[in-house]
């Protein structure tokens, strides 16, 4: 089964690395992101960090293609304007008012996956994430942790090469947070590229391979996590890591 | 534009099929008539006899005479069956109808509160009765809807030399029954055909206070809508209905209709 899955992923065009070249985003002439240039490499776990309002969520939406840059270029390796093989999990996932299984099936149907294969994928996803007992439950009535687990499972079932996560644990208790982190690590082990925002330093240390640090809409540090946590180059990052309030 | 029309037409026909009654397709004609004939129950009595004899179903749309004639003028009925002689003659003269036939008569009566404040029970004739109402300030409930009854009422006011205007003249703008309901409430006098009155249940304090003047004579006519003007008119079946209703059998059916043992309509074919 795993072999078939990997085969399918290999068959899709490689979308990574994703290159941003001088990307900016402005609303009514008000710049919110500017001069972002970086390359998101395949198979890495990138944590996007920064204070509230630094532009982390916007950055993620811009990469994912929910908003378009007003300056610069966003280039997927596959040459697609908006890469197909990507998914995103939101801070508060929107689950459809239907069963858990139907929530998993929905994006697969959108991708045009045929009925039998779709049912197969849904069953496999339910099994893999321990959701099988909840399959027929209405998704909206699950606990917060279960809902986020379903949102991640839904993203996984879409077989993305890149997965964007926007503060996926900010509304969860510690045990649910651990479950979600374990899922994310599992995805990474399978070779999925992870781009995630968090303001939880402990979580960032646990999950990061690379770090991008945003400050007031600018990317001021970007590199391997070890180096960032050991010795940040900018005073803003140093203050952030020290737990000082910065803005 | 033409194409749009065609699309709408075919969509509507589809809908028509969807909504078609399960009953087998049967020959039917549409008769626009007056509330007085329908409400009295006359049609319920005579139409089954006609349908049993001919296999033609008769669908009666009961309206005020003015509206019933308009329905015929627009070609939405095959036969009109009303009581407003002058208007009927105009209808035929203008080419909307083929020919008018006398069918039957009933009469108008004036109803009013039993204590009769305007003293109509002593009136020598209909014009005097109407003048009495206007003179005493008692109320009068009028159809006000250009129906046959309303037309007759206006003729009576004219004969009485009274301008029907002012707070005492309540124009209901509705059917005979609704007007009688208003009169019973007010209470007020009202002009009504005897048929509607006899089958009317909500009389309250009302009773007949004047009747019998020959001017209250109320002739009904039946007219085939002119197929030369409206080619879709079911002329053969419509004429069959007219032929039947003026025949001995049809006239006998009209004569045999009674309410509370009283005959309402009197055959008028010589």
């Amino acid at each position: 089964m795993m072999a078939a899955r990997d085969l399918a992923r290999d068959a899709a065009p490689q979308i990574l690395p994703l290159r941003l070249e001088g990307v900016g985003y402005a609303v009514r002439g008000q710049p919110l992101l500017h001069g972002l240039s970086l390359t998101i490499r395949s198979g890495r776990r990138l944590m996007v960090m920064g204070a509230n309002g630094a532009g982390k969520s916007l950055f993620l939406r811009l990469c994912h293609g929910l908003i378009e840059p007003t300056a610069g270029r966003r280039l997927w390796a596959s040459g697609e304007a908006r890469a197909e093989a990507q998914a995103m999990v939101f801070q508060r996932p929107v689950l459809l008012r239907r069963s858990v299984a139907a929530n998993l099936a929905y994006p697969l149907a959108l991708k045009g996956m045929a009925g039998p294969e779709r049912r197969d994928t849904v069953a496999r996803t339910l099994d893999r994430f321990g959701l099988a007992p909840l399959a027929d439950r209405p998704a909206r009535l699950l606990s917060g942790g279960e809902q986020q687990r379903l949102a991640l499972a839904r993203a996984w079932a879409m077989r993305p090469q890149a997965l964007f996560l926007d503060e996926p644990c900010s509304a969860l208790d510690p045990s649910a947070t651990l479950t979600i982190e374990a899922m994310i690590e599992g995805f990474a082990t399978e070779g999925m590229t992870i781009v995630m925002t968090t303001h939880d330093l402990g979580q960032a240390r646990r999950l990061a391979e690379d770090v991008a640090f945003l400050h007031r809409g600018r990317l001021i540090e970007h590199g391997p996590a070890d180096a960032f946590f050991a010795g940040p180059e900018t005073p803003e990052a140093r203050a952030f890591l020290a737990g000082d309030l910065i803005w | 534009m033409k194409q749009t029309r065609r699309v709408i037409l075919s969509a509507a026909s589809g809908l028509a099929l969807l909504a078609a009654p399960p009953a087998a397709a049967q020959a039917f004609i549409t008769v626009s008539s007056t509330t007085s004939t329908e409400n009295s129950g006359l049609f319920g009595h005579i139409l089954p006899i006609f349908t049993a004899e001919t296999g033609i179903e008769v669908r009666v749309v009961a309206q005020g005479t003015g509206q019933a004639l308009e329905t015929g003028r627009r070609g939405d009925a095959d036969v009109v069956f009303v009581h407003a002689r002058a208007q009927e003659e105009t209808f035929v003269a203008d080419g909307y109808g083929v020919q008018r036939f006398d069918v039957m008569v009933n009469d108008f009566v004036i109803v009013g509160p039993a204590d009769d404040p305007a003293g109509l029970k002593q009136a020598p004739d209909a014009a005097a009765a109407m003048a009495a109402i206007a003179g005493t300030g008692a109320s009068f409930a009028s159809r006000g809807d250009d129906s046959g009854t309303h037309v007759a009422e206006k003729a009576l006011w004219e004969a009485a030399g009274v301008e029907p205007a002012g707070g005492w003249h309540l124009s209901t703008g509705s059917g005979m029954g609704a007007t009688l309901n208003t009169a019973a409430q007010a209470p007020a006098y009202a002009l009504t055909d005897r048929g509607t009155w006899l089958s009317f249940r909500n009389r309250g304090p009302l009773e007949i206070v004047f009747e019998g003047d020959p001017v209250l004579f109320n002739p009904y006519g039946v007219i085939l809508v002119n197929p030369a003007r409206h080619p879709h008119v079911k002329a053969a079946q419509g004429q069959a209905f007219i032929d039947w209703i003026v025949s001995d059998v049809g006239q006998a059916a009209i004569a045999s209709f009674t309410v509370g043992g009283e005959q309402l309509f009197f055959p008028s074919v010589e």
Partner: protein
Amino acid sequence: MDSPFATAFSLIASGDAALMQIIGLSLRVTLTAVLVACAVGLPLGAALALAAFPGRGAVIVAFNALMGLPPVVAGLVVYLLLSRSGPFGSLALLFTPTAMILAQTLLILPIVVSLTRSVVEDLWAEYREQLRSLGASRLRAAPTLLWDGRVSLLTGVLAGFGRASAEVGAVLIVGGNIAGHTRTMTTAITLETSRGELGLAVALGIILMALTLALNAAAWGAGQWARERLG
């Protein structure tokens, strides 16, 4: 005069064929009108919520205003269209149940469209990013939003049903209140009132209310069930 309730009860108990025919026709006409209004109004309302085009605001305001369309006017419009002297006279639909369905559809449609637009617009605000992320186009989002808004939409459909089943002005004009053919509960009530048979009229009104009550109770129950099941 007997109590109208007693009259209503004995009418139903007797299983009077004419009454059953009238009830059957009323339900057939109104339910068909609701069905047609939904078939047209749900997609139209969703389109109004999701599409951006010049004059959209005017269309929305027009549909909102049409919710107050007097039934008599709706009836007159359909009458003039379907009359033999009107543009669609050749269809011979005047004084038929189909004409009544058309008139009632005209009455219900604005309610369905306006409510659908409002429900779908609210849901779209909530779902927009997620659906785009999952790969749904606006066109594909429309059925999703309609389905997810089904409990709220049911309320609007019921309001439409209520308006249609209660109205008399439109069906009287375009149906003609022909005995055994286009006589519905409401036109029968009008007729019995005009005959001074007030007890019978009220009895018919009680039966109509009982039917409406039963349908609303069923819909409310279904809505509650769905709310509990689907969140």
